[in-house]
């Protein structure tokens, strides 16, 4: 078993642990955690740090809350609500190979399996061998969708005005900074030049997150920008 080698930075992990990070990036971090025992432990350590800060908050207002404690009496007496409805378990899905499934929490957000054929309307071709999913969400200023790259197909040059993040869900890709496989996170700060290219037999499919506007450069602009 190989665990991911490229992780979200500590700002994201602490922000996720503390609750400061918003839902869009938290979705990417949480999905990376499903792949990465190392970051799960890191987040648990940051949660413990936040827990210690929580415990250090002054507690002298205690007496003011006695009324609230009294009012809770009725709630405590109430019989516990019927057991939480368990969400449908994937293990029940016949013949599904867990290893090929996108893990939670992302799976519940997606409308269909990520490897739907590229000509079925779920994908928009950006350039030969590179597609963006028709599924797209904007959450607290962050745009999320899927990016798909065929073997050796280069993602067209683009500029982004804020952070860009990729999480590999299938296959692998490479850029000038490294080689990214299942569960790996690539994080680019604003205005970073990078040239991703599919690097696996099968199409590489990533969760793609963008904080600001994405500007694809045509050939001429790229020469100017470069």
């Amino acid at each position, binding site marked *: 078993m190989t665990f991911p080698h490229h992780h979200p930075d500590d700002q994201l992990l602490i922000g996720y642990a*503390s609750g400061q990070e918003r839902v869009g990036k938290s979705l990417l971090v949480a999905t990376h955690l499903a792949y990465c025992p190392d970051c799960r432990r*890191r987040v648990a350590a940051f949660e413990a740090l936040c827990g210690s800060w929580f415990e250090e908050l002054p507690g002298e207002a205690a007496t003011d809350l006695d009324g609230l404690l009294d009012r809770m009496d009725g709630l405590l007496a109430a019989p516990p609500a019927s057991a939480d409805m368990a969400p449908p378990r994937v293990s029940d899905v016949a013949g599904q190979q867990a290893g090929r499934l996108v893990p939670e929490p992302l799976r519940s957000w997606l409308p269909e399996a990520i490897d739907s054929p590229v000509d079925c309307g779920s994908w928009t071709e950006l350039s030969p061998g590179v597609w963006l999913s028709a599924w797209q969400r904007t959450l607290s200023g962050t745009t999320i969708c899927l990016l798909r790259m065929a073997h050796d197909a280069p993602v067209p040059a683009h500029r982004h005005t804020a952070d860009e993040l990729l999480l590999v869900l299938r296959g692998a890709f490479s850029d000038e900074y490294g080689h990214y496989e299942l569960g790996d996170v690539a994080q680019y700060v604003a205005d970073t030049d990078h040239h991703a290219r599919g690097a696996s037999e099968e199409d590489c499919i990533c969760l793609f997150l963008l904080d600001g506007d994405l500007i694809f450069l045509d050939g001429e602009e790229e020469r100017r920008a470069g």
Partner: protein
Amino acid sequence: MPFSERPSPQDAVPQSPADDRFGELVRSVAQQRDRAAFAALFRQFAPRILQYCQKLGADRGAAEELVQDVMLTVWLKADSYDPAQASVGTWIFTIARNRRIDRLRKEMRPAPDMDDPAMTPASQATPEEAAQLAQGSRQLHGAIETLAPNQSEVLRRSYFLEQTHEEIAEETDVPLGTVKTRLRLALGHLKRSMKDTA
């Protein structure tokens, strides 16, 4: 909830006497529906939940509702508390964090599902990877403990209290540049703990 796997003995959460006492109270709530134990937990943690919400911008009414919500969760879910994973304070913090995001920020908090068969369990680690995981965890705890107090303070303010750099500069009466430097140093210090395991 903290969702780390049950830690191996060498990196289990260190238990202080206070943890033992609160852990005992949670156990009494879980096993005996002990209201006196619940009241003791309430007196300890309710004021902190209230402060936490108010410091993050909730008014008194909303903060009290959240206190009630979180403490009711403690009452109902006491049997899910696992002292091997987190101290009682950390456990209650994670409940308060989640409920705040849910109710005050009106967002949901995406979290991995520990029962998801598509999740990669730590138990799939090769012995070498398992050793690396344990070592990384120890190094991070060490790094957190050795953070300079002023660096820990900027982390606390920016992530736990969600203050902007400008707010931190104003409230702690240090120049904005110093706030940014301390934050960078704090993150650098934590990052060094990852070097050998990355």
